[in-house]
């Protein structure tokens, strides 16, 4: 039998939340019409942008920290296989069990089996992007297990039967009046006199959650970091709900993408400075939980670490795109992105929205399954500047556009036009002719300074909202040649 190499597998279809039902332009067209969403997002992102800018600005060696973060991630990815084996050894030596999941389906099966083995039918969850990515809650629900989100924003999303729209603040698209309405409608036993005062809302959530924390026998978390040399897992959070999940239940299951590890304990020094300032705009986050395996008589007595690939190895194989795996999920790129701020997170279709989502999701699924995402950017570069590990997101976006174009087997009208234009622009004689032809467009204007607004597609995409200037009778190079006798 001969083996045929079919490429490194990407995240499978039909499971998890990496693919949307609509292309980005179609989804954005709808969300742009939602005035409340635009107001909520504009307010939230500008607030957090200002906070981040202030706390990043006060660190004199931010540029060096950022470079250190980038360098550690690059070095880690270059020897990821070795570090993963080391991590497994350390976790095992400290009484934990490591499970390897090729993809979302396998990861969901592993976690479901582990929960079922405890005999419980409910779990509490720490906010986690990895479990959102693989659609774990739905998989557990199908097995008759209720998963309770305990992060406040994640709880709002879950109660509202909604989808997260931001990496750090999943309910960023909701304002407090909307949150009050969701709580009143869905929270059992909630005080009907609940107001939209943030403190009252937090207290209602607290009462709702406390009961679940005390009852739960199993918790599921993600991880911000895992230290290979010590087998330590790290969760960084603001509310303390994560700490409750990580310490109270008997069993803890942590689901983590294989790219989240750092080689040494010392490396945390860099990331624990970069992350809070970039994400919440705080000097330090309120809660950092660190644990290695199990400690007899203290905290969970059973610990499972589920390492998921789900397309990550395929990303690692792309020498330009692999930088996307350096992401520490701070969401600074979302908060500074003018496209995200207006279209909102749902328009991206994936649990990873914004600039990082636009480079990560298409790589995890294969570009053709998320082909509109690399184009969902004006390439303004604000994301690159804000990224605490200096991921060159604009360059990866451009690279993925190239991958998409080169994956086409049929010639689209766009491709035909670009190919023809390439021939023309690489031949000065043809280019001068083409410029003259473009100049004929001025006859459409009939003496006006702009062309008619009712041009046929694709020009209509421009002229529906913007005027086009009337082309001049002569190009600059033509005028110049005439005046200078060439």
């Amino acid at each position, binding site marked *: 039998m001969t083996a045929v190499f079919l490429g490194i597998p990407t995240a499978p279809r039909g499971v998890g939340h990496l693919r949307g039902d609509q292309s980005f*332009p179609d989804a954005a067209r709808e969300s742009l019409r939602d005035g409340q969403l635009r107001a909520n997002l504009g307010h939230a992102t500008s607030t957090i942008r200002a906070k981040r800018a202030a706390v990043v600005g006060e660190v004199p060696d931010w540029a060096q920290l950022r470079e250190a973060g980038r360098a550690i991630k690059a070095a880690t990815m270059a020897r990821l296989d070795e570090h993963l084996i080391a991590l497994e050894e350390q976790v095992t030596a400290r009484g934990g069990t490591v499970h390897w999941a090729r993809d979302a389906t396998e990861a969901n099966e592993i976690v479901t089996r582990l929960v079922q083995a405890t005999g419980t039918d409910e779990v509490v969850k720490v906010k986690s992007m990895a479990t959102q990515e693989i659609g774990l809650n739905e998989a557990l629900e199908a097995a008759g297990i209720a998963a309770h989100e305990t992060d406040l924003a994640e709880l709002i999303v879950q109660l509202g039967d909604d989808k997260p729209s931001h990496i750090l603040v999943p309910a960023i698209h909701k304002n407090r009046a909307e949150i009050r309405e969701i709580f009143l409608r869905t929270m059992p036993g909630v005080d009907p006199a609940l107001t939209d005062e943030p403190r009252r809302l937090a207290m209602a959530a607290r009462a709702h959650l406390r009961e679940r924390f005390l009852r739960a026998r199993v918790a599921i978390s993600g991880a911000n970091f895992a230290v290979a040399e010590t087998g330590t897992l790290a969760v960084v959070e603001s509310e303390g709900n994560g700490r409750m999940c990580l310490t109270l239940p008997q069993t803890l299951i942590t689901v983590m993408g294989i790219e989240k590890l750092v080689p040494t304990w010392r490396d945390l020094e860099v990331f624990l400075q970069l992350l809070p300032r970039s994400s919440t705009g705080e000097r330090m986050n309120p809660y950092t939980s660190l644990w290695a395996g199990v400690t007899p008589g203290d905290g969970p007595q059973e610990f499972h670490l589920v390492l998921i690939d789900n397309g990550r190895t395929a990303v690692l194989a792309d020498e330009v795109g692999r930088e996307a795996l350096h992401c520490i999920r701070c969401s600074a790129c979302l908060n500074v992105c003018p496209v995200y701020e207006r279209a909102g997170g749902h328009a991206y279709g994936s649990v990873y929205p914004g600039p990082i989502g636009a480079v990560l999701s298409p790589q995890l699924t294969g570009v053709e399954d998320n082909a509109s995402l690399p184009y969902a950017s004006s390439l303004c570069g604000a994301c690159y500047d804000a990224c605490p590990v200096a991921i060159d997101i604009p360059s990866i976006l451009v690279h993925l556009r190239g991958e998409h174009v080169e994956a086409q087997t049929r010639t689209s009208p766009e491709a035909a036009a670009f190919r023809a234009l390439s021939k023309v622009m690489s031949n000065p004689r043809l280019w001068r002719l083409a410029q003259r032809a473009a100049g004929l467009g001025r006859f459409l204007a009939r003496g006006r300074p702009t062309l008619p607004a009712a041009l046929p597609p694709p020009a209509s995409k421009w002229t529906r909202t*913007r005027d086009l200037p009337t082309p001049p009778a002569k190009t600059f190079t033509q005028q110049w040649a005439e005046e200078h006798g060439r």
Partner: protein
Amino acid sequence: VKVALFATCLVDTMVPQVARATALLLERLGHEVVVPPGQSCCGQMHVNTGYRREAVPIVANHVRAFAGAEAIVSPSGSCVASIHHQQADVARRAGEHALAEEAAALAERTHELSQFLVDVLGVTDVGAYYPHRVTYHPTCHSLRLLRVGDRPLQLLRAVRGLTLVELPAADQCCGFGGTFAVKNAETSTAMLTDKMANVLSTGAEVCTAGDASCLMHIGGGLSRLRSGTRTVHLAEILASTEDAVSPQQSTKPAMSR
């Protein structure tokens, strides 16, 4: 300095007055200007839309057209940024290593207008006169890829008669983004609307920038709204003098010869 002017495909074809102003300005400052006739495009639109293979012959043409030029100047931040950051890369990716070397060498001699004036020529007062209320939009590629910083503002502050007003949220993208403006026309327009609101809030008569493409976008929106504010390229402002400046400068360059 003998300066080879790269007009860029858009300026050459659509807004020739911007290239003319650049040439006039450089000549007024005592430099010889040549316009290599073989020039067309830097290839940026192809690269950024995903047609990086098709961009290679365009890069080759650009390198041929400017071969031997000692200094190349262009009134476009994003085209210069593409020359600096993309041309050699796409050539190398296509296996055209000799072309990549030539493109990289050419990039080192290629300058965005404000950087050329301030850094290479060492001038901030170019002797311009422009009696208008002006706000400046720092285009994304000038700001973040070329890091032109406050050079355009230094140049504008030295212009006689010019009132410079600060643009709120200046560093936010106008929504142009090349083919983004048509592929994601709605999002692009939403970004443009906010940019226009900020421009209009300044009460400026003129919004200027170092990129004709972004200005075509902002100007196209302002014109559609019948607002009185127009867009004028930085080069046109710097080329204006007491002898040749006109309120209608956006569509009719005052400095014809």
